[in-house]
Structures are given as structure tokens and as C-alpha cells.
């Protein structure tokens, strides 16, 4: 990693400790992200809260946002976020097969509704062909989602992609394996692979 994480035993800010517990529970991000951001505690809390609110809370289905998050992380080539999985999404029934379908040829996949396809397309186009995210595109979106939901999706996509681009440059990997066991960065790189 290019930035050393702050050791857990050196984090004594009560607000950060509370968020470390949240991260341990949701697993996306896992505590490693907060340990990196903990170099700037005020940023760590604000950024984590924004990530949590935009990803876990809101009116748009969390499983759909989780697929979008992974799709974006792969575009950003971020080995950290691309390999994390939301515990809440898994508990709600999200599978690796559904993730692969959403990150692949979702347009022709019968497993997604018209509304879900629009949301996946929104994420797909935002950083690849943003000129196609125009008024016509948004008008179609408004037949499927409320404006509040569209803003929720758009802000979620923007925020997470931007942070994933930053995390990509840190060359980090998840701090745990898929069973929740702590692993070193070297073990994690071997486990998840260096390409996403």
C-alpha cells in the first residue's frame, strides 16, 4: 500500500471507533478504509458517513446499489472496493451470480427489470460515455424513478466512483477474507488477485 493505515490501537477518537464497528458490520468499506482515512479524523468521519448513507440507506434497493458499486470499482480498477461485499446485501439475497450479471450484459439479462437496467446503464454510462447521460436519458429515468431516487442514484454513483479512483492509487486490498477472517495485505492480494 502507498499510504500506511493508522494502527487500530492508536485510534482513540470515540466517533471513529463507533464507525469502525459499523464498518466491521457492513464490510463495505471494511475497517481498513477508516484506518487509512484516520490520518485526517474529521475527513474519516464525514466521508464514511456519506458513503454509508448513500450506499446502505435511501429508497433505492441496496442490492442494486451494491451491484452498481462493484461495477464502478471494476471500472476504476480499484482492488480494494471491487473485492468487498456488503454484508447487508448478501443477507438480503445478493449472490455473486447476480453481481456478475449486473456487471456484464445486463441489458439482455431477463433477471433485471426495466428500472434496474436503467440504473445499471446510468452507472455504466456516467464515466464511460457521459454525453449519453442527457435530457432524453433523464426523461426516461423519470418514468421509472422519482427525481429523489434519481438524485440518490446519481450522487451515489459519483461519490463512490470518485473515492474508488483514489483508493485504486493506494493499491490496497480488503483486510478480511470472504469469511471475515483478518488477512495481511499480501495474503489479501494473493487471495483476491491484482486485477479486477
Amino acid at each position: 500500500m502507498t499510504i500506511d493505515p493508522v494502527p487500530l490501537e492508536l485510534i482513540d477518537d470515540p466517533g471513529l471507533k463507533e464507525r469502525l464497528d459499523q464498518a466491521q458490520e457492513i464490510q463495505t468499506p471494511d475497517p481498513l478504509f477508516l484506518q487509512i482515512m484516520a490520518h485526517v479524523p474529521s475527513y474519516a468521519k464525514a466521508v464514511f458517513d456519506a458513503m454509508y448513507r448513500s450506499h446502505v440507506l435511501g429508497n433505492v434497493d441496496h442490492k442494486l446499489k451494491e451491484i452498481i458499486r462493484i461495477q464502478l470499482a471494476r471500472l476504476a480498477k480499484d482492488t480494494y472496493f471491487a473485492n468487498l461485499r456488503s454484508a447487508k446485501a448478501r443477507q438480503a439475497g445478493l449472490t455473486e451470480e447476480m453481481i456478475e450479471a449486473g456487471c456484464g450484459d445486463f441489458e439482455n439479462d431477463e433477471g433485471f427489470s426495466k428500472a434496474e437496467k436503467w440504473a445499471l446503464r446510468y452507472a455504466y454510462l456516467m464515466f464511460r460515455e457521459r454525453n449519453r447521460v442527457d435530457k432524453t436519458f433523464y426523461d426516461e429515468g423519470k418514468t421509472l424513478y422519482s427525481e429523489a431516487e434519481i438524485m440518490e442514484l446519481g450522487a451515489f454513483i459519483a461519490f463512490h466512483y470518485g473515492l474508488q479512483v483514489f483508493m485504486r492509487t493506494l493499491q490496497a486490498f480488503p483486510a478480511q477474507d470472504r469469511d471475515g477472517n483478518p488477512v495481511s495485505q499480501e495474503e489479501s492480494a494473493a487471495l483476491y488477485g491484482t486485477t479486477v
Partner: protein
Amino acid sequence: MTEELIDEGIENYEKSTRFSDAEKIALRYSEWMATAPERIDAAFYGALKKHYSVAEIVELGSYIGFNVGYHTFFGTLDFYPMFTPDGRLVSQEESRRVYGDRPVSHLKGAVQRAASDNDAE
């Protein structure tokens, strides 16, 4: 802060004599994050650490990442500032006319268009 300095920082920072080495690497960090993140490697972070603390680098990096994401999203919403460069409240149509359809230097038209509108009023 002037419009000339903003333009210099965006278009000519590498060769400019107006920015310190520390400022140049921060501007390079931002440019590459948006356009060539693969160039931001361990060697680059090593160079950053000569000028900035780890806390400052995390601050810069997350700030830049946040902005990379948000400016792309906001660009798709097709809206414009509420105020002209000289501080007048204007409609979205008027703002589009003053600032233009693409984000360019304010010295390439926006300031003059706003000033001519003000004179006309």
C-alpha cells in the same frame, strides 16, 4: 486568487514559475487522478511525501477523488451557476449564455459577456 492564476494552474502549471514544487505535484496529483490514475504509483506517493505529510496527502487524495466523481455527475445535470462572475443573480438561460456550453476559462468570454450585460442594464 485571480482568474489568471486559476488558468495557469490548470493549463500550464508544470512550466509555470508561479507555483512551488509542492503545489505542482498537488496539481499533477489532481490531473492524473482524473485522466491517468495508473501513473499514480508508489514512486509518485514517495515524491508527494517529500512535500506533504501523510495526513495532507489523504486530505488531498480524497478531496480530488470526491471532485472527480461529482463534477462528472453534475455535468450531466446541465445546470449553471446562479450568479455571473461579477455577482449578478441570473436565470439558467442567461447563465448558460454567459458561461458557455463547455467549462472553459472565464477569461475566454464569461467575464466580458457578464460585463457587457451589466453595461446594457
